[in-house]
């Protein structure tokens, strides 16, 4: 791999950050765009989550009165969606680009459309449409109204005005934008198979594809998620995460009064953990239809309690 070593001169390589030719270029263009608008540019949350919404920067920060504008990439895991790397559109691990704007600015639709321009999608050539799609997350006790955003018939983003999170009314309402990065990149790069995406934008021998980076992972994790994950351990982990979450929540109330909470974030980590473990168990098909509902309810109870705790912290706006 000697020739793969980076040389300074490569930085000048034409077009390797063009969002329509490079996956990472697309990410950088979106980051640049939203950073210019004053968003806090965060890094991915360091835990397994099913969607960018689970990042505390969205779930918890959407609650309470304080303004909050952030953008970040979030690796998302959906164990059930794995296809052993054989399906050109389905992945058990993919990237979401998440933007949260609280309160939702009056020109949020224009901001979104300009972000598409920033990655080379010109609405004068492409048919951009806002198609009704109400969002609900039973595990987070959250719902909102909004759209799927279509570009020439392809869903490229989700656009949601959060009305409720963790069972609490959002006041003010936050606007959430979620870009499915692989899909968007496939669209702008014009490829039909996700694994053919150009990752680094190079067209010479240093070109790296999405498949080179992730195909092996898709195969291995599909095997793990569907066939070999240790379900006995996972059942145990679910219980442990649930118990830990409850324990931290109970211990976090300052002076035993329900006015100020000191451990909302660590407690919420356990809620995320429980949610992911549930997804793993679900992928293994070891949770029956009736049990499924009760697991979802258990995670929701944790999420609600975390939301309540968060609202009693400084970040949540408590005095």
């Amino acid at each position, binding site marked *: 791999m000697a020739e793969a070593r980076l040389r300074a001169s490569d930085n000048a390589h034409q077009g390797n950050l063009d969002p329509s030719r490079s996956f990472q270029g697309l990410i950088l263009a979106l980051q640049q765009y939203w950073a210019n608008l004053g968003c806090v540019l965060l890094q991915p949350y360091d835990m397994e989550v099913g969607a960018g919404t689970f990042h505390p920067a969205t779930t918890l920060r959407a609650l309470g009165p304080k303004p909050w504008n952030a953008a970040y990439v979030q690796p998302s895991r959906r164990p059930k969606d794995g296809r052993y790397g054989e399906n050109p559109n389905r992945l058990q691990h993919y990237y979401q680009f998440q933007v949260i704007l609280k309160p939702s600015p009056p020109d949020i639709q224009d901001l979104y459309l300009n972000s598409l321009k920033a990655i080379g999608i010109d609405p004068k050539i*492409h048919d951009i449409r806002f*198609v009704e799609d109400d969002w609900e997350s039973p595990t987070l006790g959250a719902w909102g109204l909004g759209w799927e955003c279509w570009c020439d018939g392809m869903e490229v983003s989700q656009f949601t*005005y959060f009305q409720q999170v963790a069972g609490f009314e959002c006041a003010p309402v936050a606007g959430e934008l979620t870009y499915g990065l692989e899909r968007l990149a496939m669209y702008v790069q014009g490829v039909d198979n996700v694994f053919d995406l150009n990752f680094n934008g190079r067209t010479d021998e240093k070109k790296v594809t999405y498949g080179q980076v992730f195909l092996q992972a898709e195969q291995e994790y599909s095997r793990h998620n569907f066939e070999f994950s240790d379900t006995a351990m996972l059942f145990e982990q679910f219980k442990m995460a649930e118990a830990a979450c409850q324990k931290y929540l109970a211990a976090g109330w300052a002076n035993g009064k329900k006015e100020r909470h000191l451990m909302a974030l660590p407690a919420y980590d356990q809620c995320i953990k429980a949610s992911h473990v549930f997804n793993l168990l679900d992928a293994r098909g070891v949770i029956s239809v009736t049990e499924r509902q009760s697991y979802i309810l258990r995670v929701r109870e944790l999420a609600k309690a975390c939301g309540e705790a968060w609202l009693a912290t400084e970040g949540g706006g408590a005095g």
Partner: protein
Amino acid sequence: MPDLLLEFLSEEIPARMQARAAEDLRKLVTDRLVAEGLTYDGASAFATPRRLALTVHGLPAKQSDIKEEKKGPRVGAPDNAIAGFLKAAGLKSISEAKVQPDKRGDFYIAVIDRPGRDAIDVIKDVLHATIATFPWPKSMRWGARSAKPGALSWVRPLHSIVATFGPETEEPAVVPLDIDGIKGGDETRGHRFMAPMPFKVRRFNDYVEKLEKANVVLDPARRANIILTDAKNLAFAQGYELVEDDGLLAEVAGLVEWPVTLMGTFDQAFLSIPGEVIRATIRNNQKCFVLRDPQTAKLVNKFILVANEEATDGGKAIVAGNERVIRARLSDAKFFYETDLKTRLEDRLPKFEQIVFHEKLGTQAERIARIAALAVQIAPSVKAKAVQAERAAALCKADLLTEVVGEFPDLQGLMGRYYAEAQGEDEAVAHAIEDHYKPKGPDDLVPGDPVAIAVALADKVDTLVGFWAINEKPTGSKDPYALRRAALGIIRIVTENELRLPLRALLWRHFGAVARDEALASAITMLHPLNEQIAKISASDIELAVKLEVLVSEKAKQVAKPLLVQAHTYLQQTHDLITFFADRLKVQLREKGARHDLVDAVFSLSGQDDLLMIVRRVEALGKFLDSDDGKNLLAGYKRATNIIRIEEKKDKREYTGAPDAKRYQLPEEKALAEAIDVAKKDASAAVGKEDFAAAMRAMAKLRPRVDAFFDKVTVNVDDMALRENRLKLLNEIREATRAVADFSKIEG
């Protein structure tokens, strides 16, 4: 006369809500205006993805002035009474009041002029009230204002409001609205991408014109029309035919302000997928139309998409993009379809053991087993082969577990047929799998093939009996399990195929099957001949079990007591369910123009559970009552029963039982008695042959004898025994007519 123009410009309104919202806006605003005394000449409302608009024309500029008189205290009343009156009437001194005498003396009268308010002020209030409570199916808060309690809520963020009011000849005024900070104005914007700059509007005419210039077609009907015309032309130009789809057309018209119709292509190879799957893929997921070859009626590898703008490249990128998405979708569909074909339908069945149909009704596997057993039971009476009925029933739900149906639930049944054909099932079995869901609605065809009929009936009977058994019956507008549709489906299958299918035995026995109790089911089969006697025993009867035991002792000694009690309960539920069928049948016959009272007249005869016979009887009865014989017989019947009712009430006793032939004194009495005997005999013979018209004719022969009886015979004579005998003879008329219908239920 001034006109009002309103426009609410918002972010994209869901297509499915637009038409209703426009209608609600028109109705709510105009109703409130009229309630305020502002009548108008006309009003229309429109919706696009981003706007709701309303024009009301021919409104008055002001409300009418109203003069109101308020009566005060008597002249010379105490000062505090006078002061109170002045205050209430808004007068400065008592000299402003008139004095008016009446019987009790002189009274003060205040004449209050209530000048009409300017219409624009009234409109302002009306709009505030309308917007605050607008009935969106779902609405939301947004932006900084949402931090405050009581913030405005709308379907999606509301950006601006046009509200102008004025006569045609003048510059209209802006209605001074302030809706949570959003002011009324006279400025709007055009198409989001093609004409985003703001512009001023005055009234409806120039508003519509300027919108068109700004690439917005306001009227949804016109947008739909443009799409349909363009799509047909595009298709025709290439020798294809558009597969029309009204639901899709309405939805697409609600997704665009400036429809631009374009044609795309997909790979021929996808045409190996069933046409319905291609259509569902392209329609449901991409909201595009499919095309067919007018000669073969088969789909072609083309589709029509409707974009929301005239793209600067002529739509090339848009078509290319849509083609790519459709290619990906069709590859998925093809993959699903081909994957499905690899597994035989019967191999999917074990999975149903894990799937709960309803908590109280067991798994899907149990339900399928019940349907299969029932289909076998029904098969002989619909001339279906039992083996085929059983096979079709066993497989009829298997496609629910296929990938294609998982993706497109609307294709259930149809996919089952395709997969059954592919695995070499008998044609009758394959068709039954598709048709067993039918009829899906009032306009859907009923299955006509015997095997399909058996499975369709079994499926619906199991649904009805199941939910009846666990007391999940429809109430009011709530019918979550579509039981009304199931009952109506059975009625249509039976009557349109002219099937003889006595319901009681079928339903009653199936209650046992639903209870998962074979002993009970076979006990019910054994008990069925006794159903009339069993039904007469009341459930509150504490001796129920004993009585039942006595009743059935001859018949079935081996039936245990608890089973008997349970069977009795189910028989009552069966009758309840049959009443439900009767109600559905009434609705259905009424829609076809039959009189509902005739349905009642037939249903209240005992033991009516054969839908086809009921319908035939109702038809014959209707024709009979339209004839002079029928009308006169009914008149005679009413006369007879009126007399009996009055006398029975007076005497506090019933006049039933056979009259004594020896007591007939007049020839008319004897003649009537003989005629009744003949009519009874002939009518019941005709009913036995199911010739209801002949039964009615037999009844009609009574008519001259009834008329003669009333002409010549006095019923209320002093001889009490004679009177009783004559009343009993009249009662015989009542009894005789029961051979064809319960005439007491017939109106008029």
